[in-house]
């Protein structure tokens, strides 16, 4: 979208473009519902993990395995990416498509950074600690919970990237705005889940 176009539509552009149409409102509502379901999904995975976290089957335990600095760095990156996605939505509300795109790009970049760290972490475990999916009940639960989250991050990255492409082609409209908004909700959600993972899996693993 060119600046001229954006200027022209400035006064007609609604304040909350994601809720300007019934379709937009439906989308946001349904996404809240979907996140409710996702919460149950992760809740079940957490419960499974908690039930099995000490079942190491003579393989490595959490305490031997985890290096907090690496995980803390990943946590930091992901939290910042949540912040940048907030900036993106603010840019959207102020009808600044270029700024919106830039913040989304930063968010995607940070997401990729997180994913790289996670993949690095997993390969370390598999190569040097002989800690794989089949090692113990603990390892299965660990890889499934954390891996599920990682897959969500990967999906989010792909999704937001496609949206960036779409914004470039179609501009910021009442059709594209709900999609951006919903993807930001998703991104916050996986961030919140990570906070729980950091606490329940890593911190608890180190101390208990």
């Amino acid at each position, binding site marked *: 979208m060119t600046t001229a176009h954006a200027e022209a539509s400035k006064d007609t552009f609604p304040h909350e473009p994601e809720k300007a149409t019934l379709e937009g409102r439906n989308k946001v509502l349904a996404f809240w519902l979907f996140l409710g379901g996702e919460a149950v999904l992760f809740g079940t995975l957490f419960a*499974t993990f908690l039930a099995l976290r000490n*079942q190491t089957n003579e393989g490595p335990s959490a305490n031997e395995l985890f290096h907090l600095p690496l995980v803390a760095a990943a946590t930091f990156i992901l939290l910042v990416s949540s912040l940048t996605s907030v900036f993106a939505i603010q840019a959207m509300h102020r009808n600044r498509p270029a700024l919106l795109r830039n913040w989304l790009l930063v968010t995607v970049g940070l997401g990729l950074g997180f994913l790289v760290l996670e993949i690095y972490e997993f390969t370390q475990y598999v190569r040097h600690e002989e800690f794989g999916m089949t090692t113990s009940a603990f390892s299965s639960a660990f890889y499934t919970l954390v891996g599920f989250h990682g897959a969500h991050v990967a999906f989010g990255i792909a999704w937001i990237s496609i949206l960036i492409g779409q914004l470039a082609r179609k501009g910021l409209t009442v059709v594209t705005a709900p999609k951006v908004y919903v993807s930001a909700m998703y991104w916050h959600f996986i961030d919140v889940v990570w906070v729980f993972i950091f606490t329940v899996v890593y911190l608890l693993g180190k101390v208990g």
Partner: protein
Amino acid sequence: MDWLTTVDHKKIAILYLWAGGLFFGIGGIEALLIRWQLIKPMNNFLDAQTFNELITMHGTTMIFLGVMPVIFALMNAVIPLQIGARDVAFPFLNALGFWTFLFGGILLNLSWVMGGAPDAGWTAYTPLSTSTYSTTHGVDFYTIGLQIAGLGTLIGGINFLATIITMRAPGMTYMRMPMFAWTTFITSAIILFAFPAITVGLVLLTFDRILGANFFEVGAGGSPVLWQHIFWIFGHPEVYILILPAFGIISEVIPTFSRKRLFGYSSMVFATILIAFLGFMVWAHHMFTTGLGPVANALFSVSTMLIAVPTGIKIFNWLFTMWGGQVRFTTPNLFAVGFIPTFTMGGVTGVMLASAPADFQFHDTYFVVAHFHYVIVGGLVLGLFAGLHYWWPKMFGRMLSEKLGKWTFWTFIIGFHLTFFVQHFLGLMGMQRRVFTYLPNQQFDFLNLVSTIGAGLMGVGMIIFLVNILLTSRKPADASNDPWEDGRTLEWTIPSPPPEYNFKQTPLIRGIDAFWKEKVAGNKGMTPAEPVGSIHMPSATILPFTMSIGIFIAGLGFMFSRDEFGNAFMSFLFNNYIVTAIGLIITFGSMLMRSLYDDHGWHIEPEELEGSERT
């Protein structure tokens, strides 16, 4: 082709109905085979392995693939009409939900011809279902097929929630919503919170079986009881997913044919919500004999019995609705009235089972089989029959034959009680569930014979129903808007079958039983809430279909990723996850297409509306 691309909720309803009918038929044949095997002691009609596969597939098929889509069919056919909406909130997702459901179901049933059906019971208890004890691909078909089908159900649930929250016609407050809309709403909420749990359970079991994970392998620290918790946290709410819509149907049918308002409408609403809530609290009543300890057993026992209170409220409200009404025993109402005592009996045995010490005696006997069939068949299936006969003219524009309908009712309900009533006694006398034969002279012989004869009679009832459908479909589609003449809700204000856009003008709702209220006030129809204008419609699309095919291929690919094929090329394709990848590419490619090409839909202009109006 039209059917592959449709996003119209009324057509999707019909698709659900045919798919459900197909799977119900398969499940029914499986039931008859099981009963044939049990007709006499030491029968060698089936061997033990086949019997295990049959009971597993019968239970799984009936619960996930048989009755669920018929429920969804009725919801799709009726809900937008009842709340005065032109469509559901997400027509595209609606189609996607159907196709994923169908392909999941097909995948599951392919197991019969691709090397062995699942054989660990519909609950797939570990360790029976782990690769140590279940060595064919059967359970893989179970985990992956149900996963795909469950995805469709979840999508459908979210869609109905959003539809009911945002698409109600002006004036339709929550407390003016028809009961079937209410129960659909609550059912969808249960789906939303229960299905993700089984999603995880199925993933874990898949990982154990295909990736060698250890969630349920005791030797490596896993826990089989974990499976039971996850399964029943989903599984118990699931039975309310099944029964609440039936409650909704009964609450529509009985007032219509009593020419009276539903007694205690608001208590019905709150009872529904309460049942849903309690439904999540009681899962461990399936695990009394697992060894959770007396405290847990006591708590779950009491919370289970609590559900009898809201359920009792419902039963009494139905009775009070009929009380003093001008009751007409049409086929739908026969089924609805037959539902009440039958379901109540199932409820009574439920309370008996909820008593933990008694359950040690009942557990895994035919008493349990009798109980849940009273609830599911005597409750839900009778409810579905009531709903199908009731809304058939609305869906297809043709009245089913009343005469054949009554024949269906009597053969089915007599057959039903013959089959399952005696099973209570078989259970009390100690006949075990899921065992492929029994020794003679334990007093099991005669009652089993009776039970099998009853099952045959139920089959006859089903056939009469099919004949009814067949004969009806050859008659002209001439049902009026309100063929039962006492319709109370909005769906009876528009033609049968409804036009694509449902309502030419969105109606204004002035009270509970909106249409009835207008009738009483002497009006012919609803007051419109908007002028006649152009109507926006979503376009048809093949993408939901291709997305589901993609998931189906990916599922198959993943399932066989560890297999040795005689053929090097096949091994290469499967063992390197190439088939899986192809499937996922089809799915994600379709998603990408969806997001890249805008679908603005199309409009029906006012002139066309006038033209298509039927008188």
